[in-house]
């Protein structure tokens, strides 16, 4: 091992940026999609309709008890087969590792976000629901206009924390050879035999971003404490 050669990083930057952009895309899509489907799951879990609540609970518990790597593998092999089943194509369509990963993460994160949203909804006093109903607002209006806005305000710090975890977890897509930030760095590292430089650089970037986001979470928590 010779001295650190930071020049490799500079030359590889355009390629690394591509990987980083994918990591960001994956994180943001999975967070937004996860929050959207997680909210639907939470509403299902809290609904009075028993079969619906049970189905949602089953899905959430299944996803939360299986390692993420396994889920990524499953979907990588299953998604083309499912699409084939739906479209009736002769051959499983080529979906690509990157797109499979996005679907996988949305579905996986939905389970975790569901539990956060569920707690958030339950943190809104029942009297608020009564007041909304007493004014003649229906279930959907009550949720959308009264309960969820308050719930999301209460859970914003936790949602962001989960997104930080998600940001780090997206690096697991290397198992299906998707080129995210870590994947791009690994490829350069092996090509140029510059493992230390590349992995150090990647680590620093992750560290900087996560620290920044954690700081934001702390500030949000302080603000939420004042508002309440």
């Amino acid at each position, binding site marked *: 091992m010779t001295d650190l050669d930071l020049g490799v990083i500079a030359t590889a930057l355009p390629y690394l940026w591509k990987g980083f952009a994918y990591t960001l895309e994956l994180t943001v899509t999975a967070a937004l999609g996860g929050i959207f489907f997680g909210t639907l799951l939470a509403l299902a879990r809290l609904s009075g309709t028993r079969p619906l609540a049970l189905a949602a609970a089953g899905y959430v518990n299944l996803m939360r008890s299986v390692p993420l790597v396994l889920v990524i593998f499953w979907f990588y092999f299953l998604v083309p087969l499912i699409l084939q089943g739906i479209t009736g194509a002769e051959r499983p369509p080529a979906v690509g590792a990157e797109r499979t990963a996005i679907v996988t993460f949305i579905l996986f994160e939905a389970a975790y976000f569901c539990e956060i949203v569920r707690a958030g909804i339950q943190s809104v*006093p029942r*009297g*608020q629901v*009564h*007041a*909304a*109903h*007493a*004014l*003649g*607002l*229906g279930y959907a*209006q009550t949720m959308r*206009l*009264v309960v969820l*806005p*308050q719930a999301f*305000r209460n859970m914003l710090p936790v949602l962001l924390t989960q997104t930080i975890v998600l940001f780090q977890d997206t690096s697991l897509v290397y198992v299906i050879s998707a080129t995210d930030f870590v994947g791009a760095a690994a490829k350069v590292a092996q090509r140029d035999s510059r493992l230390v430089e590349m992995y150090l650089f990647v680590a620093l970037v992750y560290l900087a971003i996560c620290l920044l986001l954690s700081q934001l979470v702390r500030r949000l928590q302080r603000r939420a404490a004042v*508002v309440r």
Partner: protein
Amino acid sequence: MAMIEMRGVSKWFGDFRVLDGCTTRVEKGDVVVVCGPSGSGKSTLIKTVNGLEPFQEGEVRVDGVSVAARGTDLTRLRSRVGMVFQHFELFPHLTVLRNLTLAQERVLRRSRAEADAKALALLERVGLRDQAAKHPGQLSGGQQQRVAIARALSMDPVVMLFDEPTSALDPEMVSEVLDVMVGLAREGMTMMVVTHEMGFARQVASRVIFMDQGRIVEDVAKDAFFGAPQERSPRAQQFLSKVLAH
């Protein structure tokens, strides 16, 4: 026709009977004060009127419409019954003005301009027009409850329900809320009021209902309730001697 009609309303929480065959009528323009010891079912009783508390037996009709019947449009019925809660239950994420316009726009389909005008007029009436842009958390308890009354009135209700509207207030704020309620009563609003404020009852009630253990024990004209205590049930006499002691 009676504005509110209850017949044999019973409700159980598991084995515990919260309401036990409650029957009463509230005519248009009546102000009925519901009192009784805590846990006697007062709040539960008035919450059956707008369907917030389901019940297992009996019938409740508001302006002729049955609350529990399958075909009833509960949303529509509720928009005609205003309710004021013990803990105000204003929506903390919305301004005072939005608190008053939200349901007007979403339920009654009023335009923003129409809803705003109505809201501001009602805030004026409860003396809080200058607070319209604030959030509920910035107001005192008494102000919040006045906003809550204005919010209920913004739907042009035919009946107003009050569930211990002054119990959560600091003593010096009680009268500003009661003043608004007295004004409403004098204008002929039909009201059902759960309260321990016997002064309010004496001033504007047309009838007093006394409840104990889920049953309506007394349902008499105000003068009979306060004027002839010796004719009341022992339980009501005991209650009266306590609340009127000071």
